[in-house]
């Protein structure tokens, strides 16, 4: 059905849809996040559910204390190496379809704390992330913006075919290895199934003698 006819019909009070749209519509408007804050960003996450920003307008206000009831994990804050196994375990406990928003610099890459010995340089070393929000911390509006981006992503999902999402594809894993505490670091330090960092060209020329007097 073409879009023009559809919008014309909807003006007349007739809603035409197909199964895929209905399915995506239902899921995108009831994303229940896991009640799970790690650090500073969690406060902005709370602020975005409060009266001023009111994430309930997007159907995402029902913060579930249990991962079994949650669709979305907002990784809001620094993931330390001590916490990383728990985060992965929580992710594994969530039922499909599940999404991850990596909120703030620390969750993306370790952020300002990335040089710390106990800080994981980004949660995407262990679990797949759908949306990244840069910022330290991102404003509540930025979280809402990311939630809308996630909704768009869900809306674009096909139910069938090769590009179908993970939860409809039995071959794709929905649980990931939980790292173990080692003597010096987590073991393994990243999950190669998830983590594909591009090779960075290192500027070999050290010309930082100029500048400061």
């Amino acid at each position: 059905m073409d879009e023009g006819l559809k919008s014309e019909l909807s003006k007349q009070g007739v809603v035409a849809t197909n199964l895929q749209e209905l399915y995506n519509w239902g899921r995108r408007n009831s994303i229940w996040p896991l009640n799970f804050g790690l650090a500073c960003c969690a406060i902005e996450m709370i602020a975005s559910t409060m009266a001023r920003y009111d994430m309930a307008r997007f159907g995402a206000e029902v913060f579930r204390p249990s991962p079994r009831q949650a669709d979305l994990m907002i990784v809001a804050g620094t993931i330390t190496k001590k916490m990383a196994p728990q985060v992965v375990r929580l992710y594994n406990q969530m039922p499909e379809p599940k999404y991850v928003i990596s909120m703030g610099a620390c969750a993306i890459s370790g952020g300002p704390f990335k040089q710390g010995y106990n800080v994981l340089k980004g949660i995407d070393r262990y679990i797949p992330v759908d949306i990244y929000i840069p910022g330290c911390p991102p404003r509540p509006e930025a979280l809402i913006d990311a939630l809308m981006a996630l909704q768009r992503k869900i809306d674009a999902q096909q139910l069938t075919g090769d590009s179908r999402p993970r939860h409809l594809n039995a071959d794709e894993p929905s649980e990931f290895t939980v790292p173990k505490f080692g003597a010096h670091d987590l073991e393994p330090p990243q999950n190669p199934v998830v983590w594909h960092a591009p090779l960075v060209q290192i500027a070999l020329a050290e010309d930082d003698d100029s500048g400061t007097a």
Partner: protein
Amino acid sequence: MTLEPLKLELEEKVPGCGLEIISNPSPSAQHSLLIDPEHAVAVAMYLRDAAHLRFDYCSNVTGIDWPAPNDAGKAKLKDMEEDLEQDEADCATAGYLEVVYHLYSMEKKHGPVILRMRTCDRGLRVHLPSLVSVWRSADFQEREIFDLFGVIFDGHPDLRRILMWDEYTDHPMRRDYVEPDDYEYEPTAHDEVLRKTMNHYAK
């Protein structure tokens, strides 16, 4: 609070204790008392209980790592560290670990009196007496020093790692600590980080 009369008083009340005033040349002028570990608990008890002192509140407990200057990157010597055992054979364990206690009095509202204790070296002889029996506020802070610096507090009721996990074996706040190598993605590496990144790729 001037330390000289306090030192004399302590030497009189706690016989045999070795005290030394460590002067602080900075404008803060917070001088401190170096006490020998054997008499530390007695000194602390006296400071807490003497009616005119009443240092009932131990605010801050800190560890400091002082490796011998030749193995630390920055070898700036200060007035504070003079008696370094240079002839120590093992370079990595030379130097000492220091624990600093900041004491205040809630009753008399005075302070701070700063106590320091030093370990013999940074290797095996890192035992110091715990002052938890005197001030409970030292509990978690001494555990933290044990965790991050590796000072072993004798007499601590519950000396476990507090911040790192139990399987961890390093003492990360020591200045010669080498962090795990996870430098495979450093798009803005320069200076120190660049060196570590290049080390990573060299492997």
